[in-house]
């Protein structure tokens, strides 16, 4: 016997939740008990099935979503519960990589299948990922089948999460979206496990909602700025007809790459807007280039796409392997993503004859990159990669050259040729003034010429006065941040509002330090003198 059941039970729950028309959004309702004739359970039967979700792919040109070619994709590695009419789980298991599940359940018992949008494994390797509605009591997304008797014989219950697409717009629940978001974490975890099968993944919450919109504010209202990672949380846009990201798998995986940096490696990135042709501050360039490259690695698809607009019909894309840019260099996220992806992939093209796979990249990010005394950048990454893969150093240098990056020989990138005047590192001797220039020539906040880094050494512990003063006027507003390099941590900062000068006395222990100097007012050319006494 084969019958298709529309799950009217869950629909009834939704309607009853809205029926009161009250103002509270956070009410938690109890699952009602359904009165059904109960036949005493005297044995068990096997219940099995496959769980899928509607995956909406991008169009063949990677611009916009293709709702005409929705396909069913396995829901992998998630908990399945058989839930009886008293809301008790009577059996549970985990779907495999094909979305298949099977468990023994009491016979002749009313039950429904519940599929949770989370992945949890407590034994090594371990992970804990869940998809929550940040605008609705941080509730875990689940989908459920209908209450139906388990009967007296084995049976199959296949469940699919529908996209909710009605032809020209979303017209019903977007049930598939949380499972689509979660699937990206599955692929990312698999990629990391390919390099270290015993990885312990710190908990990750993936926050997705149809209310998640592109404005900063209260995340419980969906004002998440944009899809981004922050402190163990991914926030993913769901604003239909403007910007949704649940099917933009590279966008979600890019953000997962920032989770990876945060939890497994170290990123000194200051964030901020960035684009493929930007000349970026070096920490941002590595972080964003890594995110783009990792999305290609984890999905084994070098074409990054992001869909936007009415009916998700527009968008843009770039190829992390074969793309080109007019602003190649050590400050370009585009250059960095191509280098990282070329180190990884097995497809030789041009100067890319390297196919190291993911493990050496993982080794650098989880090893040398975590403790490097320099700011994280392409300089620190390549230096460690060459140290750990000495036989490939020449090939790596050739790949760098193809992106207008001269040979990298140390973690500070000494010896820049391309845009050498914007090379950010300087050495300061205590008591001796150091002249630097901050500029808005490449944009503001996080661009190449916005920041300069000063290396200095403290021989003996004490209180030192750090002063940054403009020498060509007072129209700037200098700020600085002080970093101890072993272990690497920001130990102090000064961001006052006095025109043209910033000064602070800072207690410092003996050791090597970095000073990150910027100009809040972002004037064209602020000539600054740095002194430490």
């Amino acid at each position, binding site marked *: *016997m084969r*019958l*298709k059941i*529309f*799950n*009217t039970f*869950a629909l009834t*729950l*939704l309607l009853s939740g*809205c029926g009161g028309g009250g103002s509270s*959004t*956070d009410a*938690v309702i109890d699952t009602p008990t359904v009165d059904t004739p109960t036949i005493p359970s005297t044995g068990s039967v096997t219940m099995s099935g496959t769980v899928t979700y509607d995956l909406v792919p991008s169009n063949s040109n990677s611009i916009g979503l293709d709702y005409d070619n929705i396909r069913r994709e396995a829901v992998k590695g998630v908990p399945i519960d058989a839930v009886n009419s008293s*809301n*008790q*789980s009577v059996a549970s298991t985990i779907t495999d990589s094909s979305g298949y599940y099977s468990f023994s359940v009491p016979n002749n018992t009313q039950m429904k299948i*519940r599929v949770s949008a989370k992945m949890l494994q407590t034994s090594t390797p371990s992970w804990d990922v869940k998809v929550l509605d940040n605008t609705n009591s941080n509730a*875990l*997304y689940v*989908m*459920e089948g209908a209450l139906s008797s388990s*009967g007296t014989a084995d*049976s199959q219950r296949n469940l*699919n*999460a529908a996209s909710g697409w009605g032809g020209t717009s979303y017209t019903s*629940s977007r*049930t598939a979206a949380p499972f689509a978001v979660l699937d990206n974490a599955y692929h990312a975890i698999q990629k990391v496990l390919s390099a270290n099968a015993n990885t312990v993944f710190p908990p990750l919450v993936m926050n997705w909602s149809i209310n998640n*919109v592109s*404005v*900063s*504010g209260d995340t419980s*209202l*969906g*004002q998440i*700025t*944009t899809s981004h990672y*922050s402190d163990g949380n991914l926030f993913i*846009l769901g604003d239909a007809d*403007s*910007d949704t*990201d649940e099917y933009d798998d590279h966008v979600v995986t*890019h953000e997962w790459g920032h989770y990876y940096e945060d939890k497994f490696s170290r990123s000194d990135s200051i*964030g*901020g*807007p960035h*684009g*493929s*042709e*930007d000349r970026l501050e070096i920490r941002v360039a590595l972080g964003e280039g890594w995110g*783009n490259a990792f999305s290609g690695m984890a999905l084994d698809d070098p074409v*990054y796409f*992001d869909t*936007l*607009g009415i009916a998700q019909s*527009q968008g*843009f894309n770039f190829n992390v392997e074969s793309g080109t840019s007019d602003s190649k260099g050590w400050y370009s*996220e585009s250059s960095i993503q191509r280098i990282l992806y070329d180190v990884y992939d097995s497809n030789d093209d041009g100067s890319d004859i390297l196919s190291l796979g993911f493990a050496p990249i993982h080794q650098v990010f989880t090893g040398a990159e975590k403790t490097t005394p320099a700011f994280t950048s392409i300089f620190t990454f390549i230096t460690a990669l060459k140290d750990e893969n000495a036989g490939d150093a020449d090939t790596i240098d050739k790949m760098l050259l193809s992106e207008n990056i001269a040979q990298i020989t140390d973690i500070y990138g000494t010896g820049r040729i391309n845009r050498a005047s914007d090379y950010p590192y300087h050495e300061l001797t205590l008591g001796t003034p150091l002249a630097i220039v901050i500029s808005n020539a*490449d944009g*503001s906040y996080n*661009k190449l010429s916005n920041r300069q880094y000063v290396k200095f050494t403290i021989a003996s512990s004490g209180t030192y006065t750090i002063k940054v003063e403009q020498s060509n006027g007072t129209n700037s507003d200098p700020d600085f941040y002080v970093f101890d390099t072993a272990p690497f941590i920001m130990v102090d900062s000064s961001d006052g509002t006095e025109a043209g000068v910033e000064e602070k006395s800072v207690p410092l222990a003996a050791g090597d330090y970095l000073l990150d100097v910027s100009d809040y007012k972002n004037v064209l050319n602020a000539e600054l003198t740095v002194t430490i006494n």
Partner: protein
Amino acid sequence: MAFSTKVEKPAVVKGTSIGKYAKPGAPADISYKSQHVKIGDTSNVNIILTSSSTTGTMKVKVKVDKDLHEISNVKKHFSFDLSEGKKEYPLHLEVSADEDGLYYVRIQVAIKGQGMRAFAVPVYVGEAVLKTKKTAVEKTDKGETISVSAAEETITKE
């Protein structure tokens, strides 16, 4: 279905994307101010778009929530030439609404070869109640809060 959430009611809503994390896309930022007004009153919405790009064209699309009335006649599609000398691109809208609510003006920008980016500007009217679709939540037997959607299900019995 609409549930309501009380939100804070600033007299003037200000915001910016500058310095905030941004996913890959067009090198563009937004800063805005919008007035919190009474039902039927006009809210002036001032938007400034900026870009670090100094060449090419920024194409802009504006979409106003359907329940937000436009007092001024605003072009929905237009473009700016990006240049070294001009780094700010202002927009001004006048809108009103017949009901309390938190509404949005949505902006989409595109720079050829450098991607696209979406922004939203909030407009608060009256009691500034956010109307949004939500699913009622439940508790599992283990106490976990869940948001339940119906699956498409096929049951086969042997």
